[in-house]
C-alpha cells in the first residue's frame, strides 16, 4: 500500500513539477560566512536582492567558508554537479579553481569576482572600489592630527594595492605631510589578528585606521582607543559609532539580478564588468556628521558627483612610482590595464609591496 502511495505521489510530483518551467539554479561560493558584516555579507545581500527580483524563476544556494585552495575546486564542482546553471565565485583567489571546473562544464555559466581572466563560460566582474578609497583618502587627509594613517591590508593583490595607492594619492594631495603605515596580515578573516594590527598601528601613532580585511574588529579597536576609522564593505557604524567616518559599500544586487536574468532568458554571454559609483556598484555609507565638519562632507559629496560624471578620476597624472619614474603622464588617467595589474606603490609610500 505504502509503495503505491509513494509511487503516485512521486508520479504526481513529476507531473506538476514539470508543469512549471524549471527554476534556474544559481550557486555562490563564499570565502567567509555571510555574517561577517563585510565582504561576504554584501555578496549575500546581493544574492537576496537577486532572489527578490527574480522570484520563482531562480533558486539560489551558497557554500560558505570555502578556503582559497584545492578545497575550492571541490566546492565549485559540487555546485556544478548538482545542476546549477550559474555559479558565482566571490573571491580573487578562486581564479584558477573556477577555470579548472569551468573547463569540464561548458554548459554552466561561471562568474568570478575581481578576476581578470575570462573564458567562453567564465565572466569576470568587479567594482571600482578605488573610487571610494579616493574619497576616504581625501577625508583622512583633512581629519588626521598625527599625519599618520594606519592601513590594514590583506593579500598583496592588485585590488588591495590599488586601494592603498588611490587612498594615498588623495590624502597626500590635501595633506603633503601624511605618512602611511601599512600592515599586511595575509588573511581576509581573523578578527583577533585584525584587532592586533589595528592596535599596533594605533600604538605607532596612527589616528585613522583603514582596513582591507573583512570584519569590523579594526573599527572596534579604533573605537576603543578613541581614534577614527573607515568601515569596510558594508556600513559598520553601529559597531564603532564614535570612530566610523564612512565606509565603501559593495552593492552587488543589481548586477547579480541582471546576470541571473540573462541566464533565465538565455542571453548570457561572457565578458568583463567593472562598474563603479556611476552604476551604483560602489556606494559611500552616510558620512558621520558627529565627527566630520559639514564643509568636508560637502567636499566628499561633490567628489562623488564628479567621479560619477567622469570629471574626477583617482588615478589622474602625474603619478610617479617609488623609483621616481612617471607612470601616468600629466593630464592623463591610468588605463584600466594598469589598474588591473597594479603591483607597485606610488611615490611617497614607504616600504614595498610584498611579492
Amino acid at each position, binding site marked *: 500500500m505504502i509503495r503505491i502511495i509513494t509511487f503516485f505521489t512521486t508520479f504526481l510530483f513529476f507531473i506538476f513539477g514539470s508543469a512549471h518551467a524549471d527554476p534556474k539554479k544559481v550557486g555562490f561560493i563564499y570565502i567567509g560566512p555571510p555574517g561577517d558584516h563585510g565582504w561576504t555579507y554584501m555578496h549575500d545581500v546581493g544574492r537576496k536582492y537577486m532572489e527578490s527580483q527574480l522570484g520563482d524563476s531562480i533558486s539560489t544556494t551558497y557554500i560558505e567558508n570555502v578556503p582559497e585552495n584545492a578545497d575550492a575546486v571541490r566546492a565549485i564542482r559540487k555546485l556544478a554537479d548538482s545542476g546549477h546553471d550559474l555559479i558565482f565565485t566571490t573571491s580573487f583567489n578562486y581564479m584558477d579553481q573556477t577555470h579548472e571546473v569551468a573547463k569540464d562544464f561548458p554548459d554552466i555559466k561561471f562568474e568570478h569576482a575581481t578576476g581578470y581572466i575570462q573564458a567562453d563560460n567564465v565572466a569576470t566582474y568587479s567594482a571600482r572600489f578605488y573610487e571610494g578609497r579616493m574619497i576616504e583618502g581625501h577625508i583622512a587627509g583633512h581629519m588626521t592630527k598625527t599625519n599618520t594613517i594606519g592601513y590594514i591590508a590583506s593579500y598583496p593583490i592588485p585590488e588591495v594595492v590599488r586601494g592603498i595607492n588611490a587612498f594615498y594619492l588623495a590624502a597626500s594631495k590635501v595633506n603633503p605631510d601624511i605618512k602611511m603605515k601599512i600592515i599586511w596580515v*595575509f588573511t581576509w578573516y581573523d578578527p583577533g*589578528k585584525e584587532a592586533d594590527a589595528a592596535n599596533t*598601528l594605533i600604538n605607532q601613532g596612527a589616528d585613522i585606521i583603514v582596513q582591507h580585511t573583512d570584519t569590523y574588529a579594526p573599527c572596534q579597536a579604533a573605537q576603543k582607543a578613541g581614534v577614527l576609522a573607515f568601515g569596510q564593505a558594508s556600513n559598520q557604524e553601529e559597531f564603532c559609532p564614535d570612530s566610523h567616518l564612512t565606509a565603501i559599500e559593495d552593492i552587488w544586487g543589481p548586477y547579480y539580478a541582471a546576470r541571473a536574468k540573462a541566464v533565465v532568458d538565455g542571453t548570457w554571454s561572457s565578458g568583463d564588468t567593472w562598474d563603479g559609483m556611476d552604476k551604483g556598484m560602489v556606494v559611500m555609507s552616510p558620512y558621520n556628521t558627529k565627527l566630520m565638519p559639514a564643509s568636508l562632507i560637502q567636499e566628499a559629496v561633490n567628489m562623488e558627483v564628479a567621479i560619477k560624471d567622469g570629471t574626477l578620476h583617482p588615478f589622474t597624472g602625474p603619478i610617479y612610482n617609488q623609483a621616481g619614474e612617471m607612470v601616468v603622464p600629466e593630464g592623463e588617467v591610468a588605463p584600466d590595464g594598469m589598474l588591473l595589474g597594479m603591483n607597485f606603490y606610488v611615490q611617497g609610500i614607504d616600504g614595498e609591496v610584498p611579492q
Partner: protein
Amino acid sequence: MNLDFIIGILEIILIATTPLVFAAIGELVTEKSGVLNLGVEGMMLVGAVSAFVTLVISGSYFLAFLISIFSGILMSGMFAILVLYLMTNQIATGLALTIFGIGLSSMIGKKYIGTPIDGLSPWFFVLISFVIVFIVSYFFYKTKSGLILRAVGESHNAAHALGYNVIKVRFIAIIFGGSMCALAGSYISICYAPMWQEGMTAERGWIALAIVVFSTWKPERILIGAYIFGGVTILQMNLQALGIRIPGQFFNMAPYVATIIVLIFISSNKLRIKLSAPASLTIPFFKGK
C-alpha cells in the same frame, strides 16, 4: 622609541597570547593524563559562542563566562564518554569534536552575528592565565594528586594496579581541558575581539596543540611557547608598520619558523623529550587487563 611605545607593544602581545595560553594549558593537563583531545578548536568555538550569546541575553559577564565554561565541560564530557567508556579512537573522536564544534557554534550563533556588545577589559584574564599555569605546575610536581595524574598518563596499568581509578582521573583531566578551551574561546569573543563571527578563533586551537608539543609537556614552557608565537606575530606587525623592508611572505611565516627553530633546540635532547612525554598518550585503557 620611548617607553610608552614599548609598553604598548607588550600590552598587545599579552592580549593576543592569552587565549593560546588558556587552550594550551588545558590541553596539556588532558595529555598528561594520557588522552589526546584534538577537539580544542571546536571547544573554543562553542565556548566563544555560548559566552557571547549568554552575554547578549543576560547582560551579565559573570554568567557569560560561567555558561561558557559549562559548555566546555559538556563538549569535553561527551568526548570523555566516547573515548573512555566506548573506547573510540582518540584522534578520530577529537577531530570529530572539532568539526562538530564548528557546526554547532555556527548554528547557535546564527541569530547573533553582528550584535554589538561592550567588550570586557582583558587584563583580569591575562593575569589569570599566568596564575593557572603556575597552579598547574605546582599541582603536577608538588601534590600527590598531580603525581597520580602523571602516573596515569605514564602507565595506566601500573596506576590501576596501585588502586587508582584511571577512568576517573582521565575524565577530570579531559573536563579541565575542555573548560580551559571554552575559557579561551569566551576570552576571544568577549575581550579580545568583542563580537561573534563564525570560525572566529581562526585556527588558534591547532596552534595551542602545537604549543603543548613545543612545551614538551611542561607547564611553564607553555608560557614560553605561547609568547614566542604571540610575540613574533606582533613584532613582525610592528616591523611592517615601521616600514622595515623584509621579504613579504616572511612576515606570515615568522611565528611558525620561530616556534620550529626553538622546538629543534629543545628536542635535540631526545632523552628529555622521552622523560616528559606521557607514555600512555592516545592508548586506550581496558580495565581488567
